């Protein structure tokens, strides 16, 4: 399950930020490493919500800074 989530997250990041797959490392920061700006991250979180049918409240979204943050948050939500 977790790997499935990780793959899907990576795919969304590649699509939305226009980066190469090998750049999307677990500790890569959306803003510092993958060229996103604040609006990109808003859109990215919306895409996660849509793809995984989860709600990511604003205060939680603000803490999702890296690829791993996203995978962990979504995994936890899906397990709950």
């Amino acid at each position: 399950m977790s790997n499935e989530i990780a793959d899907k997250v990576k795919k969304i990041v590649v699509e939305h930020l226009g980066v190469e797959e090998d750049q999307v490392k677990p500790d890569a920061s959306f803003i510092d490493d993958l060229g996103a700006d604040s609006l990109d991250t808003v859109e990215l979180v919306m895409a996660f919500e849509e793809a995984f049918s989860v709600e990511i409240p604003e205060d939680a979204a603000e803490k999702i800074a890296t690829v791993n943050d996203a995978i962990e948050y979504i995994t936890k939500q899906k397990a709950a």
Partner: protein
Amino acid sequence: MSGSGTNRKRVVVTGIGVVSPLAVGAELTWKRLIDSQSGIGPITHFDASGLPAQIAGEVPEGPTADGGLTLSDWIPVKEQKKMDRFIHLGLAAGIQAVEDSGWKPETEEDCCATGVMMGSGIGGLKTIYDNSVAVSSGKARRLSPFFIPSSLINLTAGHLSIRYGFKGPNHAVVTACASGTHAIGDASRLIQHGDAKVMVAGGAEAAVCELGIAGFCSARALSTGFNENPIGASRPWDKERDGFVMGEGAGVLVLEEYEHAKRRGAKIYGEIGGYGLSGDAYHITAPAENHEGAYRAMQAALEDARVTPSDIGYVNAHGTSTMADDLELGAVERLFGDAASKTSMSSTKSAIGHLLGAAGAVEAIFCLQAMRDGILPPTLNLDNPASESAIDRIPHKAKEKQVDVALSNSFGFGGTNASLILKRFKD
């Protein structure tokens, strides 16, 4: 007229860029235009079969080298979704113009002396429509964070400034179908007034979407009788004309203070000789009686340029292929008097349709190319003029003629009128 002091700064054109239904590229568009080609065809952007008007001038898709639009050659894929199509087209024309001018400011001073003024009549209509539909289907909390910045009219100017680091005046014009002409005129005034040394100015429009076509259909403005013969639909001054044909595209000029252009050895296409504006104070969509507002705008432009009608060898008419064509013709005849028989006038909307807020910018570029090459673009489909006139309207085929001064007209809903005088450059 304002700003017409003897020491007024001269404004020259040092770069041009066009995205039109004929081609992506200023020179290929021009080549096809004077070859009497048409960019009008069936609408492909959406299913128009339920609407009275089913044709438009759409920018051709295809390889950049063939004059087609390959968006990723202009804008990275990741950035494209942050912009409505009018910004895509405006950027493609703007990039052409800036690259053509060779102006690459590097110092802070030069960056701050370079501004952008891009008009649009309508802006991101399709994006607004798409997001409205999303709201209507309960997705108000799921709108893209890029919805607003991709729809705003001044964002073409914003994106161009961000791309090139132009930190001078950043402005946008919204005067319906006069936006492109107003943008060039107003940007020239900013240079004359000393607010900038270089202004990237023009217009962009992409309203060939269901909402745009349906809306203009309801206003009874579009041609509806030529769906089976698209290239015959835009026929300014012709007896059979029945409305305008919508086009999409963009035109951008790099305007530059003459001494600045000269110092850096820039290629000069021509000079912005004069600019005139007026309002009709009459009706929201119909021009004033006898197009007297157009008359006053043209008169003001001539005075501003200190030229007389006998100097003007070519008029690029607003000429939308509507009933208003003959009113414009009458206004030009009254203004020109005895000089009418010496001038030539055409409507290039016959080939590309009406680009709304981009029309005036593309048409100003055609005037410069006409003077450069000594060839005037034709009015297609002018088989049987509704009104006789002493003015040569260049039916069907381009015409060789040396011209030193040209006049370009644009008029918009709301009763807004703008005229530009463009001159062959003489040191």
